[in-house]
């Protein structure tokens, strides 16, 4: 990547106050993310992966260090959490248009855009459903569509498929990779699955056990578009082994 970084994270530390002098979640984490890059943050649980996303989303102030966005101080953010986090009192379509509504966009244009997004995530015809009537995979697809509908500068994915069953999860990888290729967004995704990271990412950052530090920054030089079979190639296996060794 030759362009200027879209996002620079410099010596980011996060300490949560507790009884014995504070819990260090992150310890001087530094990395860069380039425009339209798909970066995965991989690490054991409790390595502060999610803390990074929370800081980037503005939900949490870092104890030290800085975050620099080239797009300006407050980039538009789309976030997907481990749970779909749909509002149960809104229909699917109203959940989808929430970010536009918050931005004050008129509803007619919002509806049109929502229609396109429903198409993209394959949920045509479910507009007026209540979230309670959706399966886990469908709900998560609504959540992904919602994170994209306001055309964010940065997409933050916090173990978005963690609560799905294995089969649905793998189908979602393919779908997400299609969506990413169609939308060309800069993505930062947190996961603890090596296969997931390799299947989706351009680059994988491995964090150490708490306090998290970047241990490995690995380019994933697998051809795109990636199909499911790629997971059975020797190249994939080599990269997976490297990541596994780094996680320890």
């Amino acid at each position, binding site marked *: 990547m030759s362009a200027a970084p879209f996002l620079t994270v410099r010596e980011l530390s996060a300490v949560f106050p507790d009884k014995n002098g504070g819990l260090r979640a992150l310890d001087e984490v530094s990395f860069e993310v380039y425009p339209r890059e798909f970066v995965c943050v991989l690490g054991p649980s409790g390595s502060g992966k999610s803390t990074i996303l*929370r800081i980037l*989303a503005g939900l949490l102030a870092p104890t030290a260090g800085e975050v620099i966005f080239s797009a300006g101080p*407050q980039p538009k953010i789309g*976030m997907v*959490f481990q749970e779909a*986090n749909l509002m149960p*009192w*809104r229909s699917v379509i109203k959940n989808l248009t*929430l*970010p536009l509504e918050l931005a004050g966009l008129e509803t007619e244009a919002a509806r049109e855009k929502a229609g396109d997004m429903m198409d993209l995530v394959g949920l045509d015809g479910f507009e007026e459903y209540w979230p309670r009537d959706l399966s886990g995979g469908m709900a998560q697809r609504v959540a992904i569509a919602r994170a994209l509908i306001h055309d964010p500068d940065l997409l933050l994915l916090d173990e978005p498929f963690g609560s799905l069953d294995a089969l649905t999860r793998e189908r979602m990888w393919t779908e997400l990779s299609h969506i990413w290729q169609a939308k060309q967004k800069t993505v930062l995704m947190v996961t603890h699955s090596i296969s997931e990271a390799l299947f989706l990412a351009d680059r994988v950052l491995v964090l150490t056990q708490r306090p998290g530090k970047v241990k490995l920054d690995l380019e994933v030089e697998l051809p795109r578009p990636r199909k499911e079979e790629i997971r059975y190639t020797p190249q994939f296996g080599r990269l997976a082994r490297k990541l596994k060794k780094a996680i320890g």
Partner: protein
Amino acid sequence: MEPKHLRSLTTTTGRNWLGLASLAAGILAWWAAARFGGLPAFILPSPIQVWMRFVRALTDGSLFLHAGVTLFEILIGLLVGALSATVLGYLVAKSRTLERVLSPYLVASQAVPLVAIAPLLVIWFGPGMFSKVLICALIVFFPVLVNTVVGVRAVPTALHNLMLSLRATPRQILLKLEIPAALPVFLGGLRIGATLSVIGAVIGEFVGADKGLGFLINVGRGQFDTALVFVAVFTLIALALVLYGIVALAERRFLVWQDTN
């Protein structure tokens, strides 16, 4: 899904029929007790006597007058009590400091039996409408307050984070997250408050009043016009049921998204 809906529909209509039949049986038993029980009418009037007294109270306008006064006290008391409880409940839910400052008063206000201080309120604020409205508001206040606090506190953190990540303003968070999320629990509190408000108004009228259904009960008792007492009691029941029904209707209207099964 279809069969499940159908089944629940048929069972609820079945239950409604059972309820009506049980009500009819109750009235019949009352009639039989009055007819064959050998009790004088000032102890137990028959349903027919009560009905005739009802028609008389209706035609001479006294029922409208007294029911109107009581309804007015209830509505204003409910409005004032529920509104102040909602605002205060929201603030308490948001601020632990405010909760600590107010909690002794809130707990005490709940521990004081309202019936016991009602005479005091009538002494202070006179036998007019104001003291009744106040008693009504006080009795409504607590359940609405508690449910508002619980409802607002139960707003999922995850949804709060979602709103923050979308840079929602505090106003948007209030309108599009906190109010709809707290609404089910809040309406539950309002439903309790609505029925309590009827009790509040009657307590106030018992202590001292020259109008209202509570006053009418006192008059009926004093004149051995027991049928009139029955008329007033049934009118109070009807008022309470209508208020309860309005809140239940609001719940049906605003909470369609909830899984009712």
